[in-house]
Every structure is written in structure tokens, then in C-alpha cells.
């Protein structure tokens, strides 16, 4: 007995007891939840299982990347809407980063007026709920656009009207795949040269204009490929026919509103993240770089940005995660995203809430984990090597 009390005080037995206690409690709780759920489901006569996914969906999706009709299955509907979520997140993340970069620049500028503009922008867009902003763009701002016949004409190529944004679409003819391959190969080549040049500079100190050469490769090789194949990619310009636009791709107002809202909202956050990252680089670094005679361009690209990146990446990852998760608000303006499909039509038609919730949670969780993993790889690559 004395012995037992002693080991309890020492902590080894105690910690094991706590841990096993927690495990037992969790297992019991899960078992209890499972038990009540299955008895409730039996009582309500709800069948469980994922078999319903092969049934015909029967509803339309207004934006589909690959062929989808009302006769397609629920699985197809989920794939189409999932791709919509991904597309929206990718484009919005790209645009928001671009915007955030300029906001950070303006907030770090010498010009007081420009700095204040950046401040006001960030405060305004960061402090108002995203959903309210989406409502504003969808129900108020985009409704001010003219009708189809009075579309705003942008360079005779793109047309903006109340039913959406009609933009030219690429047309791929025979031989287009060669051009796409050329683009891929040129990027790989440029990246390889960049790596080689960097390694050589570290080893021998000899610089190599890798950026200019890389840009040249990325431009010239695809151009030559396109020239050989007699320019197989052309743009189909939308034209107003009798009642409607013919040709081109129409971006729906729902998509446009989501894109504008997500970009402006996340741009404010990303601008703040980039600014904080750049400011966190010690003043001495800039002064030292100045004193050894680097140009402003070199100071930024060689000294400030590489160090700032290490501080920017973790919060930026978080912001991309937030952005992706907040695309689920698309349901509010009726853009057919993953969550819209799962919580709307499919849930109403099948009543399989349990399975649909599982798909929702694990779908988004998968995307989140994927982004986190990608950014972790990048983070590891840019980490300061520990000695």
C-alpha cells in the first residue's frame, strides 16, 4: 500500500492513470454516441450507408468544369462542386496575394497619403464581416450593372453585365498539347537553371543572370513551339448575337461576387501579414546591405525578402486555409460550391445528413491538410539551416 502511494506521488503511475482514464472516457463516450445514434436512426427509419451516391442527382449545376447533366450521379455532382470550390479558392488566393503585396508596398511607402490609404483599406475590409461584404457585392454592387444589351464593353473582348462577366475563351486546335508541353518543359528548365545558378553563386561567388535567362526561356520555347504548330491556340471573342452572347466564357455574377469579396477581404489580411514580415527584418540588415553597396533591388531581393518570407509563410498558410474554408459561404449567394451541394439539394433530396456531414467535414479537412502540408514543405525548404 505504502509502495503504491509512493509511486502515485512519483507521478509515473499517476500519469498513466490519467491517460488511460481519458482513453476509457473517450471510448465510452464514442460508444454511447454511436449507440444512441443507431437507436435513433432505427426509430426514424433512416438507412445509413453511402450507396445513395450512385443515384441520379436530378438537379442542375450552373457552373461545371466537366460534363454534368441532371442525369448524372450524386458523385458527379460532388466532384463538379468540389472542383468549383477549388477553382474559386485558387483564383481568389492568387488575386488576394497579388493585392496584398501592393497593399503592403503602399503601407511601407514614403508617401504619407499612400500609407494612409493602405491603412484605411486594411481597416475597412478587415473589420467588416466577410458575409456582409459578399452580400454587398452580390445584392447591391453587381445589381447596378447594366443589362445584356447595354453591357460595359472592355476593349471589344470582354463584356460586363448584370448576368455576369463574359470573357474570351481559349480554343485548342490540333497540336495545342505540344504547346502546353513546351510551357511545362520551359518552366522546369528555367527552374533548373535558377537552382544551378544559385548553387554556383554560393560555391564560387560568380553571379548568373538567371531571372532574365529564365524569363527568356519561358517566353521563347512556348513561342517557338506555337510557331512550329502554326499557332494552335486561339481566343474565341464573345459577340452579342440576337438575344445573347455567343462564344467566350460567361462568369456568373455569383462567382464574380465571391471572387471580388474574397479577394478584397483576404487581400487586406495578406497585406498586413506581408507588411509585418518585412518590418520584422532587423534595421541593421538593411543598413549593412546599404553599406556594402548593394542596390535597392538587391537589398530587397537578396536580404529583406528571404528573411521576411520565413515570418510571412506561417500566417500566410493560415490565411489561405481561412480563405478556402470561407468559400463555404458561397451558399449564401448561390454559387454552386461543395458546401452548397452538400447542405442544399443533396441533403434535401436524400435526407442522408449523417453521411453528407461526414463527406463535408472530411472533404474540407483533406483540403486543409493538403494546403498545410504543401506550405510545410516550402517552410522547411526556406528554413535557416541550424548549425
Amino acid at each position, binding site marked *: 500500500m505504502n509502495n503504491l502511494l509512493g509511486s502515485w506521488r512519483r507521478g509515473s503511475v499517476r*500519469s498513466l492513470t*490519467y*491517460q*488511460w482514464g*481519458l*482513453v476509457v472516457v*473517450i471510448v465510452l463516450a464514442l460508444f454511447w*454516441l454511436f449507440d*444512441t*445514434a443507431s*437507436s*435513433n*436512426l432505427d*426509430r426514424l427509419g433512416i438507412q445509413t450507408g453511402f450507396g445513395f451516391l450512385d443515384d441520379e442527382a436530378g438537379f442542375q449545376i450552373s457552373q461545371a468544369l466537366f460534363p454534368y447533366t441532371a442525369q448524372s450521379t450524386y458523385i458527379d455532382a460532388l466532384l463538379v462542386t468540389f472542383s468549383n470550390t477549388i477553382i474559386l479558392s485558387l483564383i481568389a488566393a492568387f488575386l488576394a496575394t497579388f493585392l496584398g503585396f501592393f497593399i503592403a508596398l503602399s503601407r511601407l*511607402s*514614403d*508617401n*504619407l*497619403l*499612400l500609407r494612409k*490609404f493602405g491603412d484605411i483599406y486594411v*481597416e*475597412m475590409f*478587415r*473589420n*467588416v*464581416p*466577410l*458575409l*456582409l*461584404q459578399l*452580400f*454587398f457585392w452580390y*445584392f*447591391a*454592387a453587381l*445589381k*447596378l450593372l447594366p443589362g445584356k444589351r447595354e453591357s460595359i464593353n472592355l476593349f471589344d473582348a470582354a463584356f460586363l453585365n448584370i448576368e455576369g462577366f463574359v470573357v474570351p475563351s481559349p480554343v485548342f486546335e490540333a497540336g495545342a498539347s505540344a504547346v502546353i508541353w513546351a510551357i511545362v518543359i520551359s518552366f522546369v528548365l528555367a527552374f533548373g537553371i535558377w537552382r544551378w545558378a544559385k548553387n554556383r553563386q554560393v560555391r564560387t561567388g560568380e553571379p548568373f543572370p538567371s531571372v532574365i535567362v529564365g524569363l527568356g526561356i519561358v517566353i521563347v520555347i512556348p513561342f517557338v513551339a506555337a510557331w512550329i504548330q502554326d499557332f494552335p491556340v486561339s481566343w474565341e471573342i464573345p459577340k452579342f448575337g440576337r438575344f445573347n452572347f455567343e462564344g467566350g466564357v460567361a462568369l456568373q455574377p455569383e462567382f464574380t461576387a465571391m471572387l471580388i469579396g474574397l479577394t478584397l477581404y483576404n487581400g487586406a489580411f495578406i497585406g498586413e501579414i506581408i507588411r509585418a514580415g518585412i518590418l520584422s527584418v532587423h534595421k541593421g540588415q538593411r543598413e549593412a546591405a546599404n553599406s556594402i553597396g548593394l542596390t535597392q533591388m538587391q537589398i530587397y531581393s537578396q536580404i529583406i525578402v528571404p528573411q521576411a518570407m520565413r515570418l510571412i509563410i506561417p500566417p500566410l498558410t493560415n490565411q489561405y*486555409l481561412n480563405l478556402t*474554408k*470561407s*468559400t*463555404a*459561404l458561397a*451558399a*449564401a449567394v448561390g454559387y454552386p460550391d461543395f*458546401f452548397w451541394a452538400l*447542405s442544399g439539394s443533396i*441533403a434535401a433530396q436524400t435526407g442522408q*445528413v*449523417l453521411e453528407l*456531414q461526414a463527406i*463535408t*467535414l472530411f472533404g*474540407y*479537412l483533406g483540403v*486543409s*491538410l493538403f494546403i498545410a502540408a504543401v506550405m510545410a514543405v516550402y517552410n522547411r525548404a526556406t528554413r535557416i539551416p541550424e548549425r
Partner: protein
Amino acid sequence: MEPALRPFIEPQSPPLQSSGFIGWLRASFFSSWFNTLVTLALLWVIYQVGGFVINWGIINANWVGDSAKSCPNIDGACWAFITERWRLFVYGLYPKELYWRVNVFYLLGALTIIAFVFSFGPITRKLRLTMFIGFPVAAYIFLVGGVFDLKHISPENFGGLLLTLVIATVGIFGSIPLGLILALGRTSDLKVISKVCTYFIEFWRGVPHIAVIVMFVALLPIFIPDGNKIDIVVRAFIAFAAFNSAYMAEVFRGGLQSIPSGQFEASKAIGLSYWKMMGYIILPQAIRNSVPALVNTCISIFKETTIVLLIGFSDFLGIIQLSLEDPKWLGPPHIFSSAYVFAAIIYFTFTYGMSKYSLRLENRSNVAQ
């Protein structure tokens, strides 16, 4: 052959004035031709936007009326929509004769904020603790009632700004203790507890909030024994506290990690138990360090309250959206714009206030270190 002495350099004009008002103007606005260009362009933008705001918001605005017809001028705001409906926006469907109870709630909320913003000398800490525990209790007594002869009002009747603030209060006051426990669990040396807390936190952080709320509202009835009923509003509250506790946990973890390990080692060396070490040494420092991040999380919780409108609640934004779809007010987009601008100003007032508070705390702790 080079001359031994170089010729004197030509006399140069004195450098541009760099101090005083003129110097400040030059450095801030006209330091280069590019900056001058930017300044002029921005002045033009200010002129245009300012003119638009004054014209739209004041000169051309329609202030009173009872339907969309009273806002014929589409180049001006339609504040009539707000002036007619503001009671609904502020009190929701709370019974008119009991508005005083909501006012008491607002007043208590304001007092709590004052207790946290200003310093009251030696009683500050006790006052803050009292408010932190007392405010949610008092809020429940006054709003829901059912005790002390106060008529019971179901939370389903809450709406408008009241519901927004109630959800935010539940989210903030519920997630702080939960988050603290989760953070302690995650940083614990006990492997199993740490893993369980980590998975719990990462799960909630990885899924969209609206999906969590829909899940709780739709699925909670399946997971509780037959015959029990949890009010739909309460389900949303639980969901809100649950996923926000994961974010709070990360805030506190940041605070815990900012404590140098010497503090832990010293506490263990003088023989403090885990709880004494945490309670007396670590947590007081860690919590103080995490307050700015905590306030930032409160800002996002406040903004996130809007998503409850997607499950059919009439929070502040929800009730405005509902009123906009009322046939009486259905009209041109400028009514929508006015309503959203009004809502944005109200949300902004709260969140901007909080962000300034967090900035002040941050600056103060920077000075203290």
C-alpha cells in the same frame, strides 16, 4: 601626369530644407517625381470619393418614409429603411414592453467593456474577474428570465443586434475556459492527453465554421437519447463555443510557449505541483502575453456571428437581409447598398474598437519588456 592636388569642387547649392513644416511636406508627399504623381492622383481620388460620399450619403439621401417608394432618388442613400426599422434591428422580436431588459444587457455589456479598458487602481483585477464571471450570468438572468419574477423569454425570440451580441458573448465567454483547458492539454507532457487535444483542435480548425454549425443543428438530435430536446439556438451556441475554443486554445498555446523554460524548471525545483506551477507562475504570465491575440480572436468571433443567418437565424445582418426581402422595401439596389453600409458601420464600430484596444495592449506590453 596627375596633378598632386585635385581642383576645388564647384560650390553647390545648400541641401533642400528637410526640417520644419516645408521639409515634412516634401519628405511626406513630394520626395520624388513618382511620389508627387501618386500624391496628386490620390488627392483627386479623395476629392471624387469625398464628393460621392457627401452627395450619396447626405445631400441626395432619403431620410424618412415607410416603403421603397419613399426612396425614389437612386443617386442617394435610403436611410428611411433604417429609420423606420431600427427598433427591429436593435431588439429583434423581443417583446416591446420588455425592451428595458435588453437595455440592461447592453448597459452591463458596456460596463464590462469599461472595466477591461480602463484601470481602477488596486481593485482592477478583482473588478475584471467579477465582470468576467458576473456578466454572462446577469445577461442570462435578464435576457432569458424565468427567475426573480422575470417573465421567461425563449432565446428563439432573440434577434437583431441583440442576437449578434448574445452569440458573440457565448462564443467569447464559452471558448476562453474551454480553450485554456485545451491549450494546457496540448502542451501537457502526458502523450495521450496531448495527442487527443491536438487532434480535437486541428479538426475544428480545419473545417468551415458554417459546416460545423450546420452539423450541430442537424445532427445533435441524432446523438442524444430520444425524448430529450435541445433548443436549436442552444445547439448553435454549443457549436459556436466548440469551434472557437480550438482557436482560443491556439492563442493560449502561443502564450504558454512564450514563457521561458527557466520558469517551469524553477517552479519544479522549489517543489510546486503541476497545478500550483500553472496557477501561480505560468498562467498569470502566459495569459497576459496572449491577451492581444485573444482580442484579435474576439474580433473574428464577432465577425463570424454573421454566419448563423445561413441557418435561418435573424442576427443583425440576418434581420436586415430579411427586411430587405420584405415586399414593402423590395426595390432598386440603392436600398440594399444603404442597408449594407449601415450594417458595415455598426460592425466596424465594434471591431475597430476592439482592434484599437488590442493594439494598445500590445504597445503597452512592448514598453513593459
